[in-house]
């Protein structure tokens, strides 16, 4: 079996200097006239892109979102009102912004439980800055920097000290929220500088809120980064097999560090919005959000074991959770019932494909 044709050599370092460094030269190599035996063509894909899309997790989520949307519009005549829909977004955009960043961390095979703790600490420090009479840009800057710094702490613990991320961030969750409690006790900050209210309550255009605008922008950015860039590819490879990724020359630690830092920053952004929207800060702010945000990411089809997942999935999951909460709210159903629905959904959407596969295997076996 000859695998190489002598007249078409492989590129080696020797001819590196003389060639243009793109992929173009290789593409031509691939098309070079082939001697015998004829080269077997291997197709790029077997599934047409459209078929693959239809079979995807995202299609399922879209269907779910459409169903809830339809049910909502039947449930309440007010639902389809554009302002009402705009209001509906407020209950998930802040969490969804963090979920976009956390999706990268989970894709890389790690987890960050401390995001809600970061929101609390960032919010508290913003309150303290505002109470000290600082202007709006400083307050916002403190909020964002706190988030980034907290994320960097997580990143250092996981990449520098090589702690398992789940326990490290359970620790920092206590630490960050604990610091907020330490600073604020059972008090609250309620006074913020002029202009601060815009981030959580303002509208960019007509009914298009600032929060939704930022979320959509960040979603596009995250989708672009994950699905189009070498960084996204590296994150996926790290999630699937960190050792092979490191052997391939990827900077595994550095990338993971920045993913944690970015998640901290996203929590800072969410904190600015939430604080602005509520107009007050308590250390108990955003309690329990970490689990809701993780749920959002996992429901979006990101495998908790790393490597698998998409940004459209996460966005759709956020939409599903948001629509559900809002719809149940229209029906005057308590938010905690909604949490049951989300819990059931989380388990069901992951368990059903597994169960279906098992069932079909069994049926195939019983009919030889």
């Amino acid at each position, binding site marked *: *079996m*000859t*695998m*190489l*044709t*002598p007249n*078409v*050599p*492989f*590129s*080696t*370092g*020797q001819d*590196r200097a003389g060639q243009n*460094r*793109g*992929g*173009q030269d*290789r*593409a031509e*190599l*691939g098309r070079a006239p082939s001697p015998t035996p004829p*080269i*077997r*063509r*291997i*197709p*790029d*894909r*077997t*599934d047409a892109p459209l078929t693959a899309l239809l079979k995807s997790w995202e299609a399922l989520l879209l269907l779910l979102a459409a169903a809830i949307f339809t049910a909502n519009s039947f449930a309440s005549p007010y639902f389809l009102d554009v302002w009402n829909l705009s209001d509906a977004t407020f209950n998930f955009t802040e969490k969804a912004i963090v979920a976009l960043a956390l999706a990268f961390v989970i894709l890389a095979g790690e987890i960050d439980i401390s995001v809600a703790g970061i929101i609390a600490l960032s919010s508290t420090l913003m309150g303290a800055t505002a109470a000290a009479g600082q202007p709006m840009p400083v307050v916002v800057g403190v909020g964002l920097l706190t988030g980034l710094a907290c994320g960097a702490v997580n990143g250092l613990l996981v990449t520098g000290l090589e702690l398992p991320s789940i326990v490290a961030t359970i620790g920092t969750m206590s630490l960050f929220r604990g610091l907020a409690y330490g600073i604020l006790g059972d008090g609250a900050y309620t006074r913020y500088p002029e202009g601060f209210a815009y981030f959580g309550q303002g509208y960019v255009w007509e009914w298009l809120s600032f929060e939704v605008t930022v979320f959509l922008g960040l979603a596009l950015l995250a989708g672009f980064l994950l699905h*189009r*860039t*070498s*960084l996204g*590819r*590296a994150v*996926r*490879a790290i999630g*699937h*097999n960190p*050792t*092979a*990724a*490191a*052997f*391939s*020359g*990827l*900077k595994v630690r550095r990338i993971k560090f920045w993913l944690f830092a970015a998640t901290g920053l996203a929590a800072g952004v969410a904190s600015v919005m939430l604080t602005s929207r509520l107009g007050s800060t308590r250390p108990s702010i955003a309690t329990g959000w970490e689990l809701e945000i993780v749920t959002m990411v996992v429901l979006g089809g990101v495998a908790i074991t790393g*490597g*698998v997942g998409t940004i459209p999935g996460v966005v759709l999951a956020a939409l599903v959770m948001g629509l559900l909460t809002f719809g149940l709210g229209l029906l005057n159903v308590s938010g905690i019932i909604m949490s049951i629905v989300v819990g059931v959904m989380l388990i069901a959407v992951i368990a059903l494909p597994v169960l279906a596969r098992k069932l079909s*295997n069994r049926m195939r076996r019983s009919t030889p």
Partner: protein
Amino acid sequence: MTMSTPVPPARLPDDSAQDAPLLEMRGITKLFPGVRALSDVNLTLRAGRVTALIGENGAGKSTLVKTMTGIYRPDGGDIRIDGAPVVFTAPAMAESAGITAIHQETVLFDELSVAENIFAGHAPTTRFGLIDRKAMMARAGALLRTLDAPFGPHTRLKDLSIGQRHLVAVARALSVEARVIIMDEPTAALSQKEADELFAIVARLKAQGRAILFISHKFEEVFRIADDYAVFRDGRSVGAGSLADTDQAEIVRLMVGRPVEQTFPKLAVTPGELVLEVEDYAHPTEFDGVSFHLRRGEILGLYGLVGAGRSEFCQSLFGITRPSRGRLRIKGRDTVIRSPGDAIRAGLVYVPEERGRHGAVLAMPIVDNMTLATLAEVSRHGVISRAREFALARCYAERLDLRAASLSQPVGTLSGGNQQKIVISKWLATRPDIIILDEPSKGIDIGSKAAVHGFISELAAQGLAVIMISSELPEILGMSDRVLVMREGRPIHLYDRAGLTAETLVRAATGNTDTHPELAA
């Protein structure tokens, strides 16, 4: 499962017709989705005899072992012990029927004591259902004494060497009064001395009247300790009998289905300029004092026993670990390599031995794997061009005659040989000057082996400097221009190809050498 199928009259080799088989497997078939892993295979084990199970990777040996030990349930065929049919639905049932397996690398429980390892799953209990530690320790101690083990039952497993862990596994087999003991590549990670000790134990087990199924790739071992053989190919039995009636060539012919004379397509290459100079490379615990030079077009073989520090040394060259001392010059320039990224930029790449763990990202598509080390080249400002990626991947896939349904197929769904082609492609795409291949033909069927060897030759002919780690003597002798032998982390000697014999290499690698005490330059 059919148990009532009439059993055809036994066709036993003449010389052992009087011995009733201890364990018989007839017509065993095992199906996986889309794959017929075993089809109608037979295996007979007799008391007091060692049967070697031989076959290429993927021939169905592991599946058969899993069927024998109750991990898998066969889709057809029957298993008989002393002539009586048995059905195993769980590993525990096989164990209580006297069948036990000692697995590759003897994976047991690090955190538990030796006694607990021996009795995991079947510890003696008191009448309150609690583990009877006293009895367990006493029985474990007695078993260890019969094996002359140099450690006691209280020792934590994590404090033992790999060879000592084998003793624990054997003690475990004895503790369940196993009549059939399966040893799946038991010597893969053992030193020669440890392997010799293991063979002594095998002989003892055999003398006690136990039946032993010995799975190994090493013919030398097989002919040394086995009495009978069974050869599998592509999930079928293709031959069985007494080793006394056959020879190595015949077994190889059965394995591959056609006679192969092992030839190595080594091309004559005039070495070019000096590309790699390693001076006195050392690591605190893994290797010491390694020095050599390498020219373009040369293939340097790195020979030694498993665990001689060859991979560790090469991984250090590649920036996975840091050397404590030593100098590296690539293309005449002093180079410091701190990470694989540095190494790739300097033109040095390393194709790891463990494809699944270090080489490929099995869950990712072929195309994504092929460009993983060259992401910067298929992207502009960090944005990947899918078209360029597919073009690059197709180029290598077709050159290497990759067998795949599409380039978007996950690498994990391919055979070992095809996975290796992808991993090598990934590295060639970086256009290196120096390529280190760590056991390049390990876990690859014999057909693909020849292809990989031809390919390595071509690379050298095109001016690549190649370092090839291999534990297979024919491969080392057939492919290398020079051979560096390492033992216990140190270079022993650097040999030229001319007049080099297998005996010389083995003597140098095992330390039985009374010649060449001097170290390599």
